C-alpha cells in the first residue's frame, strides 16, 4: 500500500463524511418538513371540521320543520355573547324544537397540553352534558350585527336585534414544532341565519 493509496482512502473518507453530513442534514430537514406539513394538514382538517359543524348549526338558527313551534324566529336567539351563544333550532329536522348552545371553556382546562392557549369549544344540545374534543381551538369569537350593519355590544340585549354574525375561529396544533405552533384561521363573514328574517 503506497502513499497514493493512503491518500485515496483519506480522500474517500473525507468525501464520504461530507456526503454523510449532507445526507443527515437533508434527512433532518425532510423530517422537519414532514412534521410541519402533517401538522398543517391536521390543523386545517380540524378547522374545516369545526367550521363545517358551526356553519351547519348556525344556518339553522330559528329553523323548525314545524314552523308553528317557532312562530317568531326573531326570538330564536336566547343568549348571545362574544364567545358563547344559545339558540333554538331543529337539530334532527324532526319538527321538535331543540336548544343548542356553544361556549368556549377556559384555557386552564387544558394545562396538560404544551399549547398554553388551546381551549375546549363546548356544544350543548338541550339539557345534555356538554360535548367537546380538543382540536386546538385558541379563539372562538362571534361579532353580531343589527339590520343596519352596526356592531352590537355584547352580551346582546335583546338578542332579537341580531340579523347577521361574523364568526372567527383560530386553531393551533397542541404540540409545537421547533417551539412554534401551526396556526389556521377561519372567518365566516356575515353569516345570515335565514330563518331570523322570515315572516
Amino acid at each position, binding site marked *: 500500500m503506497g502513499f497514493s493509496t493512503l491518500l485515496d482512502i483519506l480522500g474517500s473518507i473525507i468525501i464520504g463524511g461530507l456526503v454523510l453530513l449532507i445526507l443527515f442534514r437533508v434527512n433532518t430537514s425532510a423530517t422537519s418538513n414532514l412534521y410541519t406539513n402533517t401538522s398543517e394538514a391536521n390543523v386545517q382538517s380540524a378547522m374545516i371540521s369545526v367550521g363545517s359543524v358551526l356553519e351547519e348549526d348556525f344556518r339553522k338558527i330559528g329553523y323548525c320543520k314545524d*314552523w308553528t313551534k317557532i312562530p317568531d324566529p326573531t326570538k330564536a336567539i336566547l343568549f348571545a355573547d362574544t364567545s358563547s351563544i344559545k339558540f333554538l333550532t331543529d337539530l334532527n329536522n324532526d319538527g321538535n324544537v331543540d336548544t343548542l348552545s356553544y361556549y368556549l371553556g377556559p384555557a386552564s382546562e387544558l394545562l396538560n397540553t404544551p399549547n398554553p392557549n388551546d381551549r375546549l369549544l363546548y356544544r350543548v344540545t338541550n339539557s345534555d352534558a356538554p360535548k367537546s374534543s380538543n382540536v386546538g381551538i385558541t379563539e372562538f369569537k362571534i361579532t353580531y350585527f343589527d*339590520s343596519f350593519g352596526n356592531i352590537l355590544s355584547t352580551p346582546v340585549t335583546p338578542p332579537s336585534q341580531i340579523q347577521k354574525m361574523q364568526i372567527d375561529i383560530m386553531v393551533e396544533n397542541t404540540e409545537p414544532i421547533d417551539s412554534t405552533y401551526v396556526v389556521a384561521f377561519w372567518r365566516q363573514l356575515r353569516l345570515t341565519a335565514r330563518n331570523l328574517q322570515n315572516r
Partner: protein
Amino acid sequence: MSGRAILFLVIGFSVLLLITEKNIGVASNRAVDNMAYYYENMNVHNIAVSGANVAANQFFLDPTWTAGFNNVPFAGGSYTVTVNIINAFTNTRQICSVGHYEGFSDTVLVTLKPSSFSKFAYYSVSEGNNPTYWITGDTVWGPLHTQDKLTISGDPVFNGKVTTLTHFVTKGYSNPEFNGGYQTGVNMPLPPGGTASVKSLADNGGADFTGHDTVYVKFAGDSIKYKYSYGSSYTSVLAKTFAPNGAIFATGATLRLQGTVTGQYSIGASQITTGSGKKATKTGGDVYLDGSIVYNTDPRSNPGSTDMLGIVAQNNVLITDNNANKGDINIDASVYAETGGFGSENYDKRSLAGTINLYGGIQQNGRLPVGTFHTNGSNLYLISGFLKNYRYDDRLMIASPPGYPNTGMFEIVSWYE
C-alpha cells in the same frame, strides 16, 4: 471497502428520503383535498341557496308560479327547483332547490304560506300628509309594516320586524330601536275588496245580515245576540249554530259591536251603493265598538286560549261616543279597516275617557286620532278621548281569525339548508 459502504449509505438515505418526500406529498395532498372538499361543499351549497332565492323571487312576482326550474347552469354547476303544495287546505307550498357541482349535491327547502294581514301588530297604507310621529314611549310588540315612510321623533321601540315600502325619517336626535330587524323596499299593498273573504265565508256556512242599515251584535259567551235598532230587544242564538264557520258579516250596514267572545270569529261590515250618479247613496261599512269586546279566556293569563276575533270594516272601526265608553275600553281583536282607520268617534269633542287597552293588532289605510292632548315638558295631558295601550297577540303570528283578509302574497315561514 469504505467506498462500497458509502454507496450503501447513500442508497439507504436516498430510500429514506424518497419515503419522507412521499409522506410530505401525502400531507400536502391532504391539505389541498381538505380545502377542495370544503370549497366544493360550499359551492354546491351556494348554488342550491341561489336556486332557492331565484325561485322565491319568482314566487313573489307570481304567487301562482309552480313551474320550477330544470337543471339551470349556475356558477360552474347547476340547480333544479320544484314547487310542491304540501298542504292544499292551508295552501302551504314548498320550494325544493337541489344544487349540483362536481359530483356533490345539496338541498334547500323553503316553506311558504299565504300571508294574512292579521299577523301585523300595525299596518298602514298611509301615515298621513302630516304624519303622526312614532315617539319616545311608543312600543310596538309585533310585526309592523307601512306602505308609507315611517316618521320618527325620539326613541320608539319596535320589538317585531319592521318593514316599509320606502324608508324611515327622523326628526331631531332620534335613536329608534328595531329589535326585530328592519327591512326597506317591501311592497305589500292593501288590496281592494279585502272584506270579501269574510263575506264569502259568512255566505257559506256563516251568517250574513242583509237589508238592514244597522246591526247590533253582542257576543255573550256561547251565544250571540243581535238586533237591528237601538230600542229593540236582542235575539239570542247559539253561536255555533248561528255561524258554524265563525264568519259573521253585515252587508251594507253599520255594525255595532260589544261583548265577550268564546271561539274564533271574524265579524265585518261592507258598504253598498244604491242609486247611481248624483243620486248614489253609500250605506254601511263602518264598525262601531259600543263597549268592550274581550275574550272569554284571556290568552295572556291562559296561553291555551283559543278565543280569537277579527273585526273587519270596509271603512272605519270607531269607538262609539256613548256612556259605556266614558272610561277605559278593552278590545281583544285584530282590527282591519280597509279604506279608513281605527279611531274614536268625536275624538276631539267627546269627554276625557280613559285608556284603549287593545290586545291584538291594527291594520288600516290611515291612522285616525283617538283623542287630543297637550304637553307640558315631558308630561302629556289628555284633553279628550283616550290614551293608548296596545299589545300584540303573539298567537296571530301563526293563526288568524276565520276568513281574515289575506295580503295576496306568500311569506317564508321556514328555510331549511
